[in-house]
């Protein structure tokens, strides 16, 4: 949303824009002041306007009040962005975009309707389009029937006749806007849209769609899912309030119909907002209150302003005192109090009546109470004060009384009772402790805090002037780096975090526990049995200290013993025997590319490997690893044949019998199929899921698989036995360890070290070590498969413990407070000097 930030002459530019709007530019800031008619705009309407500032999708009303002559006015920012009027065909994009904008405007308008605000003269040049956001101007400000003739096209007939605008009047306008959005391209406009236009354009309000929301829903459905969506624009309240603070100066200085008391009230409002900012900075610190000026203090909960109060009389204890829009008012205790009374004229009449009267002359009034006359208290400051942790009692006397009950939530009656109670005591009877300023605890936190106190006090006094200059230069600029860093960066963080989160989701896919997805419970899978031996299928379950894994051993009846072939190929290298060479890959396999790997753990046997009848690894030699390959989950038949030159592609073409033929079951998770010797010296294929669970930060993982012929061993890492590290044939141990180099060894029961190696495991790496062969035959060997991509980031990056950034922001906010305090004190003094009341 752009607020007008070109520097213009320091003058009023008056432009009549259909509704008597005055565009005022001062020091580069422009606001629109819309003057209303007293018959139509009463106090409650103005209050609704002010309270609509938080609605998204509307150009906010940053101030609205009655001028001294009773004329109501409302102030809105001037928006520099293009309007729908500039986008209507043939000027702009396709009609669907304009229609989508109209839909968003309808939704925003509906929100205003729910608050009791109607537009009455909605037109395309009041719908601002900022990128993908839409903001509607003029809600609640339009005078409808008094619009200029060239706006009559957009205004519902009943409004032109003088009837107040309703939801359906705005629906009429939205329909006209939609019609204009179509331009000339009526051919490809869906029927439902044309129907909606006709429906909305009905002269009879009851015949139109009942609400702007209904209008928007129908339009959304007609436009379909792939339309461009516009969202309601949102101006943060802080910006609106800052505009308000600036606007008050403009209004006071230029518009002759403004009231200066309202201006001071706005300034106080500005102080309250500044106070809120300060409060958030100081919240949680040790109680520290700094007295900035007479009657003005900065406390943990904000700025406390001693409001000027005139004591003019006495009321009874039982009377209720309300803090309302216009200050503290006294009502006779017989008056029925409810929310609406705050604005009702009864209240004001009562106040008007009683102020100045000596107590004895008031009806039903006892002698002990005090009428506090009109008090210029800003509601927010009062609320902050009421919630303050420190209760402050100040002199009751002519200067004024403000009693805060430190336990009272801000409830107007509670607050008023507090005032009453204090007010009942006369200065003589009441011992008032001196106004308390709590010193900053110099030992709290770091020493810099003590310095902060001195810096703050000195800076505030000196900084007031600096802040005046800042305020003058403020218009249109970005403000302090420190204080805006938070706000500028946060939305980026949202967007970027959103984008980055999506990206990291697509990257991270390594976390499953590596469990085979189809455990077979002790099943025998006999695919070929032509031997005398029948091996029973076994399933052993191993639990390790990090995860429960199910290890599967599926065996089949094995064939007869290997026949040595005279044609053992002498391929020493691990290259696939084929026309073209496949690159030998070393180094870790990324966890998200780890499919199925096949490990040759049978010493001395060169084999041709067939899976499902198709040769995939001719000339597979011991100690080599094939893959990763992608194998569908489920059962597959794996045949290992004696390796021959020119191995046929199809197992069916082989003339010899396989060394072993086995059905293996794989899941969808990465796993290794390992050919090894079983306890009987037969070749067996075992499937092991790879443990690709994430590792702890700065850690890796080692898995040691015992597939050798030999006794059970205990795995030692860096000389120490690992927990659950004693494994027999077919078992494995899982060892998380710190990233880096380690020695891994296997030690038998009698303490003999049978294997020893130095392994480097990086952060996030898994090294799966398979020990195979036979110690007796001297063919003991091992292979290692490395996987990467399992790393976890450190749990936190703790890089700060002293809140020096906060101190900077305090400085900034306190400069702000310094200025607004000065302004407020001056204004407050001026107001006191010539007291006036508005209504």
């Amino acid at each position: 949303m752009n607020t007008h930030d070109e520097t213009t002459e320091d003058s009023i530019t008056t432009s009549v824009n259909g509704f008597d709007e005055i565009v005022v530019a001062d020091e580069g800031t422009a606001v629109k002041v819309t003057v209303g008619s007293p018959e139509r705009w009463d106090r409650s309407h103005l209050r609704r306007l002010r309270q609509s500032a938080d609605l998204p999708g509307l150009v906010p009303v940053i101030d609205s009040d009655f001028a001294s002559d009773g004329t109501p006015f409302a102030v809105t920012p001037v928006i520099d962005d293009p309007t729908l009027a500039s986008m209507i065909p043939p000027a702009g994009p396709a009609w669907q975009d304009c229609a989508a904008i109209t839909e968003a405007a309808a939704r925003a308008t509906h929100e205003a309707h729910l608050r009791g605000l109607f537009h009455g003269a909605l037109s395309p040049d009041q719908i601002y389009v900022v990128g993908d956001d839409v903001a509607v101007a003029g809600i609640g400000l339009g005078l409808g029937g008094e619009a200029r003739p060239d706006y009559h096209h957009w205004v519902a007939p009943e409004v032109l006749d003088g009837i107040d605008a309703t939801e359906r009047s705005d629906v009429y306008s939205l329909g006209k806007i939609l019609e204009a959005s179509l331009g000339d391209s009526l051919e490809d406009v869906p029927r439902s849209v044309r129907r909606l236009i006709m429906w909305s354009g009905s002269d009879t309000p009851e015949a139109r769609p009942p609400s702007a929301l209904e209008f928007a829903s129908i339009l959304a459905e007609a436009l379909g899912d792939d339309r461009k969506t516009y969202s309601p624009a949102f101006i943060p309240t802080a910006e609106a309030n800052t505009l308000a603070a600036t606007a008050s100066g403009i209004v006071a200085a230029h518009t002759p119909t403004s009231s200066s008391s309202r201006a001071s009230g706005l300034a106080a409002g500005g102080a309250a907002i500044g106070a809120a900012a300060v409060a958030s900075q100081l919240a949680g610190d040790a109680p520290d209150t700094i007295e900035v000026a007479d009657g003005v203090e900065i406390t943990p909960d904000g700025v406390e302003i001693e409001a000027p109060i005139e004591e003019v009389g006495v009321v009874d204890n039982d009377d209720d005192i309300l803090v309302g829009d216009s200050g503290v008012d006294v009502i006779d205790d017989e008056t029925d109090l409810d929310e609406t009374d705050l604005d009702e004229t009864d209240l004001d009449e009562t106040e008007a009546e009683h102020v100045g009267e000596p107590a004895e002359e008031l009806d039903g009034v006892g002698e002990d109470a005090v009428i506090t006359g009109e008090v210029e208290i800003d509601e927010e400051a009062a609320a902050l004060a009421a919630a303050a942790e420190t209760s402050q009692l100040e002199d009751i006397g002519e200067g004024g009384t403000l009693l805060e009950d430190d336990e009272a939530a801000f409830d107007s009656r509670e607050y008023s009772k507090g005032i009453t109670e204090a007010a009942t005591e006369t200065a003589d009877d009441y011992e008032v402790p001196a106004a308390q300023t709590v010193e900053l605890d110099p030992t709290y936190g770091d020493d810099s805090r003590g310095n902060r106190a001195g810096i703050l006090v000195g800076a505030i006094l000196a900084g007031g002037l600096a802040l005046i200059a800042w305020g003058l230069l403020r218009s249109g600029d970005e403000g302090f780096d420190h204080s805006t860093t938070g706000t500028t960066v946060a939305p980026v963080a949202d967007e970027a975090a959103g984008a980055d989160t999506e990206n990291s989701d697509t990257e991270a896919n390594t976390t499953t526990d590596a469990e085979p997805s189809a455990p077979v419970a002790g099943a025998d899978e006999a695919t070929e049995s032509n031997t005398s031996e029948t091996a029973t299928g076994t399933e052993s379950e191993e639990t390790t200290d990090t995860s429960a894994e199910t290890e599967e051993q599926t065996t089949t009846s094995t064939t007869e013993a290997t026949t040595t072939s005279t044609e053992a190929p002498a391929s020493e290298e691990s290259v696939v025997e084929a026309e073209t060479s496949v690159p030998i890959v070393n180094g870790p396999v990324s966890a998200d590319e780890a499919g199925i790997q096949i490990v040759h753990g049978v010493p001395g046997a060169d084999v041709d490997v067939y899976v499902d009848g198709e040769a995939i690894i001719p000339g597979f030699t011991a100690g080599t690893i094939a893959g990763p390959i992608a194998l569908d989950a489920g059962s597959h038949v794996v045949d290992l044949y004696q390796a021959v030159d020119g191995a046929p592609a199809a197992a069916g073409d082989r003339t010899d019998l396989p060394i072993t033929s086995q059905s293996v079951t794989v899941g969808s998770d990465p796993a290794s199929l390992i050919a090894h010797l079983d306890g009987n010296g037969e070749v067996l294929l075992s499937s092991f899921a790879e443990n690709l669970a994430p590792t702890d930060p700065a850690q890796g993982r080692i898995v040691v698989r015992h597939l050798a012929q030999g006794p059970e061993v205990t795995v030692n890492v860096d000389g120490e036995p690992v927990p659950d590290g004693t494994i027999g044939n077919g078992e494995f141990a899982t060892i998380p360890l710190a990233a880096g180099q380690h020695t891994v060894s296997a030690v038998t029961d009698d303490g003999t070290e049978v294997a020893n190696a130095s392994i480097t495991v990086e952060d996030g790496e898994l090294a799966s070590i398979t020990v195979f062969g036979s110690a007796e035959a001297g063919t003991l060997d091992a292979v290692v498969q490395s996987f990467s991509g399992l790393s976890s980031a450190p749990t936190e990056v703790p890089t700060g413990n002293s809140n020096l950034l906060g101190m900077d922001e305090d400085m900034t906010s306190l400069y702000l407070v310094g200025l607004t305090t000065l302004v407020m004190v001056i204004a407050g003094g001026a107001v006191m000097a010539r007291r006036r009341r508005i209504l």
Partner: protein
Amino acid sequence: MNRRVLSGVLVLGSTLATVGAAVTADNGGNQAGSSAMGVIGSAAVDLSGEVVDPSRARVQVPVRDGRLTDDVVDEQGPHPVMIRIGDIALEAPILSVGVDEDKQLDVPAADTVGWYEHSSLPGESGATVLAAHVDYGGKPGAFYNLADLRPNAALEVEMADGSVVRYRVIGNTQYDKTELPAEEVFRKTGDTVLQLITCGGEFDPGARTYLANVVVTAVPEESQSF
């Protein structure tokens, strides 16, 4: 927030989104591991594109020697030892650090920058992670002004062998600590980036800690992909 700031925010946000997308798109191609998987079962895949004798094995699966030899520890490249960022008048030494017993990044003393030793080295795929305090023990830390870095700011990292890697800032983002995209910030694969991390945002005086992290992302100066 006025238009300039807002549009700056939007530009930065969309830049980061684009960066994120580019990083994702490029990821996965830089692995030392196998990137060619043989597929079994379908029509025989000839990875080379050549026609092979049908009687020979047609599916070519990569095979490697997996023997466990005495691991020769690869000499890692030189570590980063100094960082200089002109725009915020920073020159600070860099120490290699790991994690502490709480698995948090073990950030060194206030005026020193830590290189997370398990992150990539400058020049390698993935993110080089440098972290330093914004403040510590009442004093400003090395990264006190990190949040002030704007895109295109230049910085350089000097390595132990004297070589210098120059970077250009492409992003400066603040995240609630609970929402830090750790997978992206600490990634080890994909495009080469430098991530500078410190604290920021709201301060929790009870816990004496900040609630957000500020992350500045930078790419090597010659980088074309951003």
